[in-house]
């Protein structure tokens, strides 16, 4: 994937409107909560709970877009929209891919955090 994990314009706009210190807090919250959301997403897939799967993907999508993690956001949106078929297929690959992109986002956010 060649697109940057974090869209700089979105991230800077967030910083500008809410304050640098607040963005740090927000990043920390996201980095703390996202791994559990990914776990829940896997759990929902295993339990074939399409509604829960869709809801978690939805939240991941909105959080990702907040920080400018546009690729992660788009992937989460794809899972949200196809939750029923994803859950019935039970294929873990799309979730793995999402988790992989999250690692990239987490690294980028951590770097920005210390910048």
């Amino acid at each position, binding site marked *: 994937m060649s697109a940057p994990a974090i869209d700089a314009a979105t991230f800077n706009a967030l910083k500008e*409107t*809410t*304050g640098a210190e*607040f963005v740090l*807090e*927000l990043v920390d*919250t*996201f980095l703390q*909560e996202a791994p559990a959301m990914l776990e829940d997403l896997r759990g929902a897939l295993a339990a074939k709970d399409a509604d829960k799967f869709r*809801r978690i993907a*939805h*939240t991941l*999508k*909105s*959080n990702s*877009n*907040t920080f400018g993690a546009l690729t992660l956001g788009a992937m989460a*949106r794809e899972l*949200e*929209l196809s939750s029923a078929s994803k859950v019935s297929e039970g294929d873990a690959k799309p979730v793995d891919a999402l988790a992989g992109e999250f690692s990239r986002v987490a690294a980028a956010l951590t770097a920005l955090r210390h910048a």
Partner: protein
Amino acid sequence: MRELRSGPGRLLVVDDNKVNRLLLTRNLELQGHSVASAENGRVALELLRREAFDLLLLDMEMPEMDGFQVLEQLAGDRQLRDLPVIVTSSLEGVENVVRCIELGAEDYLSKPVNPGLLKARIGTSLEKKRLRDQQKELMRRFATPEVEQDLQTSGFSLGGKLVHAAVMFSDIRGFTSLAESQPPEETIELLNTYYELMFDAISGHGGIVTLMMGDGLMSVFGAPVPLVDHGESAVRAAQEMVELVDLFNVERTAAGKAPIRIGIGIASGEMVAGYTGTNKRATYTCIGDTVNLAARLETHTKVAQRVILIDEATRSSLSERIAVEPLGPVPLKGKAVAVEIFAVDPGQR
């Protein structure tokens, strides 16, 4: 001319996701609002029922109780149904947005929320809320709670319907000469105290004051909300009015002022009740023979030298605990045949 922009408000942010909640709260606080937050619909409703808020920012996708359920609950709650709601969500599908609006949401903002758009929408919503509150406050002051409720549930339309009710007219005897003998400020003060006492007695028995003219009051028992025992309620209100005036007179006499005396006429039966006037200025009132009779009875109290006079229909609706004295058929202005009238003993309670 007042300023149109609305000042800061007290807002409630509902979102199950902490990042969204923190972000929205931050944006709103930066705009000067005071913000509380809740992580799901159930917690939000608890907060809304405990504290007053000007605006609710509601996420749709939430565990335990989602946004749709919150909107449904709000719509069914008399205290909360006017609370403006802005849905902040990233719901997919326009049909979901339509459903939010149909359920009473005022506006829809998709996440991530643009702060500029957020500010504009919130300003508009708060301004609308302020105007609505102002309107309600005016209604409270100029209409009775019953009429206000009636207007809120069935809406405003000119025109009446036939109801069974009791009408009461009351006024202060010799008020004109009293008013001429004292400074106008004192008269206004007297009227205010008098009105307050009379309103208490009337509304305490389920009646509503529909007309105030100088020292005269017209009130209705049994409309717009039906009362099972409208006749007896009116009579009991009259007795309480007389008692309150007696107490008021003790105070006046002690202050070296002349006591006041009142006269009350009550008639029961069918009448047309509804809103009359124009679409610009209207009032809730009752019209019909019963109303005329009540007015005549009130006037007749001077002749009969009794404080409370009632008609046959009202008398026959009374329980035996209220003592009445038949005064026989009396010719009244506007009535072809003499009318049976009765005096109620003001002391019998």
